[in-house]
């Protein structure tokens, strides 16, 4: 759904966020709001060079989605220094998502 974003699984998630600040996008393949937010995130990437994106398919990784309380999709986690510092569930505009990325 997201172009050029690594797909994370339960085994690799903690190591990934320990090494990468940025956004992790929880989605489902057939979720219409996820399609919208994926396009929004693509647009944000154009406006925030260096923004790091990764993704989790919650149907393929239900344990990870449950552990991170991201069963509702789309959910975006903002990760910094190996920790989840903010989360947002539902559709957002590019302006809202850029503001979300720039907090903290």
């Amino acid at each position, binding site marked *: 759904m997201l172009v050029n974003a690594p797909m994370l699984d339960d085994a690799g998630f903690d190591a990934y966020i320990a090494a990468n600040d940025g956004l992790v996008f929880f989605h489902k393949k*057939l979720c*219409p709001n996820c*399609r*919208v937010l994926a396009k*929004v995130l693509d647009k944000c990437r154009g406006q925030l060079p260096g923004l790091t994106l990764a993704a989790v398919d919650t149907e393929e990784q239900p344990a990870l*989605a449950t552990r991170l309380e991201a069963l509702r*999709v789309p959910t975006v986690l903002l990760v910094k220094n190996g920790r989840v510092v903010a989360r947002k569930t539902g*559709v957002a*505009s590019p302006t809202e998502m850029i503001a979300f990325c720039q907090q903290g």
Partner: protein
Amino acid sequence: MKAYDVLIIGGGVCGLTAAIYAARANLSVGIIEKEVCGGLVNWTHVVENVPSYKSIHGLDLMAKCREHAESLGVDLVEVEAVTGVDLSAELKLAVTADETYAGRALIVATGRKPLALPVSTEFENVHYCAICDGAPYKGKDVVVVGGGNSGFDESLYLAGLGVASIHILEVFPQCIAAAATQDRARRTGIIRVDTNTKITALDVLESDRGRLHLENCADGKTWTEDCDAVFCFIGQKPNTDLFHGLLDLDKAGYIVANADMETNVSGVFAAGDVIVKKYRQIVTAMGDGAIAALQAEKYIRAR
């Protein structure tokens, strides 16, 4: 400014069909879509009434429509909302936060948007998309408001997720969902339906569950029912805020267009769910889109 022969506002099935027809007439075409192309069909779990597909997910159907339009060179501008239009000059303009778009002809295919639950509530578990929000309710009790195709279709999806029970509430005396879909829902054994039932209030309980206050519209009887979530599919309203005072609208806000999809403004066409019509189906939206594009081509060639 980006200029096209045909500018289309709205990338649902109507707008995409119009784009395909216009592009095949060798016209340059741009679609501006505030979300992603696909419109309300994207929200339909299973589509079973489009000839050539016995059964297809709405997102998959619209991905094919989108690919078709893109293959013909249609410019798709997504997650960009039109904030204003100028229909007064020969060139029709649509303005977004990022750009001004122009068309020698404009096709309005903005469709409709879902209506919100008609009661004010602090209950957080009110949702409008079973695929997006249904997963946390496995083993729990949900209420679905609306007995149309969307209400039953989304109920079947929730049933597949493993919710414990689904209670569909319909305010009118009968559910209007397709009979085959209603039969399939009832066969699940966990879906029950009450017609003539309206919600008068929705409270939050200490347990974080919700308490619905219900009323039978026929005999006035009232009662309460507790649930873990409410999914609302009670219909749509037209996306015509941009056109008040510019295009002729009916009392409900739908655009008045003739059989050739012409509006009261020369060079502006309207098609699909957004116009005054009796039947709003995928195939009727496609038909409207085709007519609007053909008529727009005729309009452009004549000038």
